């Protein structure tokens, strides 16, 4: 089940804070760029939706996927959101800057393998 996805956390001002390419099969270089392009384009649509529903506002977790696993994706988002809050609680972390912790990276990939 070749199941790849590109996951990105974007802050206010549309700056990516964190990106990861997760999946079962390794992809070629240009596919990775394409994924990111699509994600950026989707940002505008998300922005419009954000104010009409009572969902998350300024920091957005975005996932580009080619599977139909809705429940898994929802749980994945919830778990990553928790991780993000824990990262945010660090008083030395400036909200909106890149997340460089390798531990965070490991955890996200483990979650991705588990839920996607």
């Amino acid at each position, binding site marked *: 089940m070749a199941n790849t996805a590109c996951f990105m956390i974007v802050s206010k001002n549309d700056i990516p804070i964190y990106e990861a390419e997760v999946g079962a099969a390794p992809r070629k270089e240009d596919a990775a760029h394409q994924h990111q392009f699509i994600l950026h384009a989707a940002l505008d649509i998300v922005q419009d939706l954000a104010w009409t529903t009572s969902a998350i506002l300024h920091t957005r977790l975005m996932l580009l996927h080619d599977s139909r696993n809705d429940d898994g994706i929802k749980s994945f988002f919830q778990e990553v959101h928790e991780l993000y809050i824990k990262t945010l609680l660090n008083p030395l972390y400036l909200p909106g800057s890149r997340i460089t912790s390798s531990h*965070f990276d490991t955890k996200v990939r483990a979650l991705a393998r588990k839920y996607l």
Partner: protein
Amino acid sequence: MIGVGKMKQYTNVLDRPLSKGKQEVSLSAFAFLFSELVQYNQTQVDNIAELERRLEDAGYAVGARVLELLCHREKGNRRETRLLGILSFVHSTVWKVLFGKVADSLEKGTEHEDEYMISEKELLVNRFISIPKDMGTFNCGAFVAGIVRGVLDNAGFPAVVTAHFVPVEGQQRPRTTILIKFAEEVLRREARLG
């Protein structure tokens, strides 16, 4: 060796659970830390306005984090999009988590449409602080004003928040009022949402 006897020692903060945990922090520890914060900033600046601004910035960082944490814990990730909603959220939930009780009152300003006030008889951060005469109108409540500004700003309601002393008859210490003045776009959006 320190820490050898601990049962569950999480090596990394990302592993620790995000649930409520211990609710209380010792008041004296906080008062001590806060007084150190004020003193440290006092040595770094030349005038009162700068000192207030620094306290506010410290509070802003706290406010941003408190908002995310509370939204996650209490409301299951539902965000407030209405003005009154976010104000009552600050007034009850945030105050309860930070100070152990809800704020004394929430009022709408009479002069301007965009002003609201949260008042408190005795603000926790001011309890152990006395202001010398030559500091004039300086108020350590600027820290709390910063927290409120952090919460509002990150919820999408940019505002200017300040703390003021309001003398009250029959009371020794004046009441503290946090004045919230919302930006133009907030009012426009609120009018649009109807």
